[in-house]
C-alpha cells in the first residue's frame, strides 16, 4: 500500500505540491490526471524517494521513504519499478544488457538464469529478436516496451508509470496499455499511472485522481470521474477551453 500524506514541494518560488493526500491500496492501479506542468511527475517521483518533500511523507507498506537512506532505501526501491516518460534505457547497452543489468548487478543471477529471464520477458512484451539491438535502433514504442520489460524482469510489487503512452501512435499506445493490463493480471502489482489519455487508460484503472493546483481535486472510480459535476474535473475530462481551468 502507498500512502501519500500532506505532501508539499516547491522549486524556488514555484509551489508545485501544496498538500497532496492519496492512498493506493495493494493490487490497485490508480490513474493520476491533470494539466501538464502541474506536478504529476513530481508527485510520482516522490514515491520512490527520487525527490524529497519539503513537508509531508510517503509511506510504502508503512515505511516512510523520506526517512530511509543507504541500504534501507535501496532495499525498498528494489521492490519498485518506474517506467520513465522517455523509457530511460541505457543507451550504451543493447536491449538484452539493459534487462540483464539489474539481474546481474542486484540479484546476482548466473548467465543462464539471466538469459532465460531476459528472453522470456522480451517475449512477453513482443520484442523477441530485438535483444541485440541498441535503444537508438528501435522505435519509440519498442523502447517503451523494452523499458517496461526491464522494470518487470525482477517482479516489482509496485509499478509507477510516467506517461507510458505519450508520443506513441494510438495503436502502439493501446498495445502498451493492454500489456500493462495483462501484466497486472499476472503479477498483481500496485500501480500509479500518470497520463493525459483518460478514456483508454481508465479501462485498466481501479481509481482515478485529478491533481490540480498542487492538491488532489477529485478522487473516485474512473466512471465517477467521467461523470463528475465538479467544474474543474468536467472541463478537464471534456477538454473544453472555456471553464475555471486557465491554460494561459
Amino acid at each position, binding site marked *: 500500500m502507498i500512502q501519500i500524506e500532506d505532501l508539499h514541494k516547491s522549486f524556488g518560488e514555484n509551489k508545485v505540491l501544496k498538500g497532496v493526500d492519496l492512498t493506493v491500496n495493494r493490487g490497485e492501479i490508480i490513474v493520476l490526471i491533470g494539466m501538464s506542468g502541474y506536478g504529476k511527475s513530481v508527485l510520482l517521483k516522490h514515491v520512490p524517494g*527520487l525527490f524529497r518533500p519539503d513537508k509531508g511523507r510517503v509511506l510504502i507498506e508503512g515505511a516512510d521513504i523520506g526517512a530511509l537512506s543507504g541500504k534501507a532505501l*535501496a*532495499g525498498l*526501491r528494489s521492490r519498485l*519499478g518506474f517506467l*520513465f516518460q522517455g523509457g*530511460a534505457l541505457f543507451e550504451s547497452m543493447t536491449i538484452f544488457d539493459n534487462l540483464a*543489468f*539489474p539481474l546481474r548487478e542486484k540479484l546476482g543471477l548466473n548467465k543462464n538464469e539471466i538469459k532465460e529471464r531476459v528472453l522470456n520477458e522480451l517475449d512477453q512484451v513482443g520484442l523477441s529478436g530485438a535483444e541485440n539491438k541498441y535503444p537508438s535502433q528501435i522505435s519509440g514504442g519498442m523502447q517503451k516496451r523494452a523499458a517496461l520489460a526491464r522494470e518487470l524482469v525482477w517482479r516489482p510489487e509496485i509499478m509507477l508509470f510516467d506517461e507510458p503512452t505519450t508520443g506513441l501512435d494510438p495503436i502502439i499506445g493501446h498495445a502498451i496499455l493492454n500489456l500493462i493490463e495483462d501484466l497486472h493480471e499476472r503479477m498483481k502489482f500496485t500501480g500509479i499511472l500518470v497520463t493525459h489519455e483518460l478514456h483508454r487508460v481508465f479501462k485498466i484503472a481501479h481509481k482515478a485522481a485529478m491533481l490540480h493546483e498542487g492538491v488532489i481535486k477529485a478522487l473516485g472510480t474512473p466512471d465517477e470521474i467521467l461523470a463528475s459535476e465538479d467544474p474543474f474535473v468536467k472541463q478537464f475530462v471534456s477538454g473544453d477551453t472555456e471553464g475555471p481551468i486557465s491554460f494561459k
Partner: protein
Amino acid sequence: MVHKLFDLTRNLGAWSLRYVSGMGLMAIFFVKALVYSVTPPLKVIDFIKRIRFIGSQSVFLIALIGAFSGMVLALQGYHTLNRLGSVAFLGPMVALSIIKELGPVLAGIMVTARAGSAITAEIGIMRISNQIDAIEMMGLNPFRYLVVPNFLAAVIALPLLTGIFDFVGIFGGYLVGVKMLGVEPGTYLGEISNYLEMGDILEGLYKSISFGLIISCVSCYKGYYMGTSGYGAEGVSRATTQSVVLSSAMILIWDYFMTALLF
C-alpha cells in the same frame, strides 16, 4: 534608490550562497568519490573501459602535443641560451621544463578537453534522460558505475600520459636541438642526467596525480548535478563548458600552489 540597494544586496547574498553551497556540494562529491573508490565492489569492466577511453585513446594526442612542445622549447631555448653562451644547458632546460611543469599541465589540459568534456556530456545526458534515476530505482548506487571508474581511471592514466608526454617532448627537443641546430647529442642527453633529480620526476608525478583527481571530480560533478546548470541540450552544453573551464583553471591554480608550497 534604496530598493535598488536592497536588490543588489539580496542578489549578492543569493549569488554568494549559491556559490558557497556549490563548493560544499563539490567537496562532498569529492569525498564520496574518494570513499567509494577505496571500498569494494569495484566495477572492473567499467573501470577498464574508462582506462581505455581516458588513457589509451588520448595517447596519440598527448604524444603529438608533447613532441611539438619539446620542439618549440628547444627552438626558443637554443636562441636564448646561444646569446648567453650556454647552449650546453639546452637538454636540462627542455627536460626540466617538461617534466616539472609542461608535461603534467599540458597533459592535464589535453585530457580535460578530450575526455573530461565527454565525461560531463555523457553523465549529463544520462541525468536528463533519467538513466541515473533508473539506476537508483534498481536499488544500485550510480556513483559506483559512473563516478568511481572515471575517478580511478583518471588518477592512473594521467601520470602515464604525462610520462609519455615527457618522453616524447624530450625527444622532440632532441630532434630540433641536435638534428636541426647542431647541439652535440652527448651534451644534450648527458647534461639532462647531470641536472635531473628524482625530486623533479616526483614533482611531475604528484602534480599529474592531483590533476587526474581534479579532472575526474569536476567533469563527473558537472554532469551528475547537471540540474544546477539548467536542463535539456542547453544545460548539457553549459555543463560541459563549465567543466572544461573549471578543470583547466583549477589545474593552473593548483599547479602554482603545489609548486610554491611543496617544491
